[in-house]
């Protein structure tokens, strides 16, 4: 059984991670002074779902912690306790511990058991400190069965040797599937025994310990196999018996003779009336039954009878379950239908296939363009429809990989909150444009560099409240995360209203490190210095930042994604760091150039302009390195046919074309034979079957089916600078 279960682990891990992230977001957004019951319910549901999942897979450490967490949350949402800010802290701590435990189960590192115990203790303390005597917490199963297609099962099993907690989870699980009734006969002398445990007693615990032979009746839409699966984890299958019962007999059991015969009329009104009895709604059958030790099911009846009477007799159980399901599950149910989980490989495969389709379409279009448009009018019409459809298809397939950047932004409120508290700063985090979408691959990769920038802003940018007030700034600093589309790229900005970068300090530090700098350097170049490895102007090294590791990593990470980093800063006013990324890793806008009969693609993002220089504008330095004079600037020149050792007829610069590239703020002139055209190309890896090639970042397939190489503009620029430096 346990081996079969392993295949579902991954699903649980993913779900639990998402639930934890949701929980954290909700906790951070929670208004402590007037918490909305909707949010509290949502947090509770998240905790409960994690508990349910962890229980199923036997991750007892997670179950224990979520159980305690859930108990406290339950009190909060029932207004038995008031929400206090220290609770939020403990909740956040608990979610961290849960993350650790999750990672432990995934096999990534060890879970911190000491921290778990500590958090458990804190949660219990908070629950007790509320001053309100702990009432037996009525379990509120998150997943209630829908009203349709109910079956009634009689479940008998021996619960000998099953411990109380497992039993409790099991009952909660079953109750989550539908209406559960406990028909177990009480064991003499044990049925009503009160078990004090940490000042808290739940009826179900007592029930679980008391009963040796457990008889349950479950009205549910789950199949017999599902119930069997659920029970088989806990109960020896040899002692387990599940029988389907006829529906009427179930009703007879569930609705005893005490039930009044109400006419069918006035159903609607009675339904509303039913909803007004919160006790009957929140206390599911399982709790009520278990609390009363099993046989007392009938005794419990009078409590609920006002509500019950209002319901049409035949569908008592079904309606009840259905209504509860609607009330509680409105939000998650909507989430379930609006998305499906698909493995990323499938999506990538689809993207590849569509890429092929685009190429085939381009090939057909090229052939079709040679036929007589009068005779083949229909064919050409079809071709243009095909072209449009292919483009639409490509766009929608690409959008499958797109995710809103809020997936990344949502983690920063927590980072900022924790760090601000640690540094004694007051910081407000604003996010703008969370809905901006970018490729999933980029989302994953952008998170780390962005975290680094946010931490940097907080540590180095934002001043302490006292110093801010002293210079007439509000005590509370602001960090703004902004994302927006610009052209074919997405721009992500981290800006703060802090101290700004100090030009003098950076230059002084650079001199100290023996770098070639001078006072006349433009600001942009000075700011770029902070991306040098090991460069830090922080006076004190803290555990937050200041070691000078990081900014260089940030830059190299972003460049690896095909992006650029720009800094704008004003001393005393603030700093803005902008990251410019391509929308997707899979497609690139490029200019195709031809050199010696070969086609190369130059990424459009690097191109400033293309021109044909006059013979007099091309000069040499020390007779070897060449420069081009373009509007007052001397740009280093690199001839592509020399870089790639190609034979070409065009060897004089003024007969070919010079493409000006801008890389890291430096311009380079690249000499090619001719420009061919502008394309959107699908990037293919050269490395998957071959190796990295100097000066080439990848390959693509052109409309005629041939392979064209994509130039690595940075490597070309380096080549040019290197050649010039060598010559000089």
């Amino acid at each position, binding site marked *: 059984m346990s081996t079969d279960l392993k295949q579902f682990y991954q699903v649980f891990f993913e779900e639990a991670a998402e639930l934890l992230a949701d929980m954290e977001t909700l906790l951070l957004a929670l208004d402590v002074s007037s918490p909305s019951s909707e949010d509290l319910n949502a947090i509770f549901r998240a905790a409960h779902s994690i508990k349910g999942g962890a229980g199923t897979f036997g991750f007892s450490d997670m179950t224990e912690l979520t159980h305690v967490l859930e108990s406290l949350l339950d009190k909060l949402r029932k207004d038995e306790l008031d929400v206090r800010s220290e609770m939020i802290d403990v909740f956040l701590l608990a979610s961290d511990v849960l993350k650790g435990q999750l990672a432990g189960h995934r096999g990534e590192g060890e879970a911190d058991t000491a921290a778990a115990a500590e958090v458990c203790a804190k949660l219990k303390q908070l629950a007790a400190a509320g001053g309100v005597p702990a009432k037996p917490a009525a379990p509120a199963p998150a997943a209630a069965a829908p009203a349709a297609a109910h079956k009634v099962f009689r479940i008998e099993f021996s619960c000998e040797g099953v411990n109380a907690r497992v039993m409790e989870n099991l009952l909660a699980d079953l109750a989550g599937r539908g209406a559960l009734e406990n028909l177990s006969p009480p064991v003499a002398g044990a049925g009503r025994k009160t078990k004090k445990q940490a000042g808290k007693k739940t009826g179900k615990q007592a029930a679980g310990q008391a009963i040796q032979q457990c008889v349950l009746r479950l009205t549910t839409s789950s199949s017999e196999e599902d119930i069997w699966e659920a029970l088989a984890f806990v109960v020896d299958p040899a002692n387990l018996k599940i029988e389907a019962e006829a529906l009427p007999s179930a009703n007879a059991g569930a609705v005893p003779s005490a039930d009044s015969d109400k006419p069918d009329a006035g159903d609607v009104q009675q339904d509303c009336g039913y909803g007004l009895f919160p006790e009957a709604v929140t206390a599911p059958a399982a709790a009520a039954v278990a609390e009363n030790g099993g046989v007392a099911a009938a005794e419990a009846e009078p409590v609920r009878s006002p509500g019950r009477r209002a319901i049409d007799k035949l569908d008592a159980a079904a309606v009840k379950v259905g209504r509860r399901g609607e009330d509680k599950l409105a939000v998650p149910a909507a989430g379930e239908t609006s998305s499906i989980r698909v493995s990323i490989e499938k999506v990538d495969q689809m993207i*590849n296939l569509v*890429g*092929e389709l685009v*190429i085939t379409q381009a090939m057909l279009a090229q052939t079709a363009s040679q036929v007589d448009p009068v005779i083949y009018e229909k064919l050409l019409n079809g071709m243009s429809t095909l072209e449009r459809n292919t483009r639409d298809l490509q766009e929608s397939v690409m959008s499958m990989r797109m995710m809103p950047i809020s997936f990344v932004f949502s983690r920063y409120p927590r980072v900022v909150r924790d760090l601000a508290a640690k540094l004694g700063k007051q910081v407000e985090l604003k996010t703008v444009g969370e809905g901006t979408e970018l490729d999933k691959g980029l989302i994953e990769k952008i998170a780390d560099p962005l975290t680094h920038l946010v931490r940097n802003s907080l540590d180095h940018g934002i001043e302490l409240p006292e110093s801010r007030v002293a210079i007439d700034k509000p005590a509370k600093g602001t960090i703004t995360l902004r994302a927006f589309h610009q052209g074919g790229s997405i721009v992500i900005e981290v800006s703060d209203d802090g101290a700004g970068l100090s030009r003098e300090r950076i230059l002084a530090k650079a001199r100290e490190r023996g770098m070639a700098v001078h006072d006349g350097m433009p600001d942009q170049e000075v700011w770029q210095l902070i991306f040098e490895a090991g460069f830090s102007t922080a006076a004190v090294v803290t555990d937050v930042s200041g070691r000078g590791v990081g900014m260089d990593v940030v830059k190299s990470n972003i460049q690896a994604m095909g992006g650029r980093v720009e800094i704008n800063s004003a001393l005393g006013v603030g700093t803005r760091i902008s990251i410019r990324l391509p929308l997707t890793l899979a497609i690139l806008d490029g200019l195709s150039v031809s050199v010696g009969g*070969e*086609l190369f693609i130059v990424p459009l993002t690097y191109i400033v302009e293309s021109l044909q220089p006059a013979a007099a504008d091309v000069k040499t330095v020390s007779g070897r390195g060449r420069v081009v004079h373009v509007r007052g600037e001397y740009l280093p020149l690199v001839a592509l046919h020399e*870089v*790639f*050792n*190609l034979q070409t007829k065009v060897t004089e610069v003024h007969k070919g074309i010079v493409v000006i590239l801008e890389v890291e703020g430096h311009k380079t002139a690249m000499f090619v034979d001719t420009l061919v055209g502008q394309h959107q190309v699908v990037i*293919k*890896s*050269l*490395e*998957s*079957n*071959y*190796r*990295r*090639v*100097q*000066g*080439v970042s990848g*390959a693509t*397939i052109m409309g005629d*089916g*041939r*392979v*064209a*190489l994509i130039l690595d503009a940075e490597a070309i620029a380096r080549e040019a600078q290197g050649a010039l430096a060598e010559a000089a």
Partner: protein
Amino acid sequence: MTQAAVQETAAPAGVMAAQASNEYLTFTLGREEYGIEILKVQEIRCYEAVTRIANAPEFIKGVVNLRGIIVPIVDMRIKFNLGKAEYDQFTVVIILNVAGRVVGMVVDGVSDVIQLAGEQIRPAPDFSASSFDTRYITGLGTLDSRMLILVDIEKLMSGSDMALMEPETLQ
């Protein structure tokens, strides 16, 4: 070049090859006959125009588009100085699937698919003088009067002197 137009017979044989691993695809380089394990062969194609790769060794002709995958093409005739490196409609490319990669190999011609029993394979003598590194030769097969040089193509293609893979990915 003895049996030039054999692609037709060899290609379907490649499909059937799954039954036994002691089946070999034989090909010629100059006047030598080589055998490689059939399971490493993905397909056999005609030579088509390649996109050259800058600063690559001469025997790496370039890359081609094989149904959307970028595949490097190696000319074994240049690599081992055997036969004449001419390209026409009879030039054959064996597409190999080795070490998780797809690589194309230009040879003079593909002969056939043969089965070799254990006793037909002799250990390779020491060829220390040959350009062909003996590490890649698993044995010499005899079939009637023909001698086949049996090559561990996976080892050969992932070897550092083929320059097909990143140095760090080599074992």
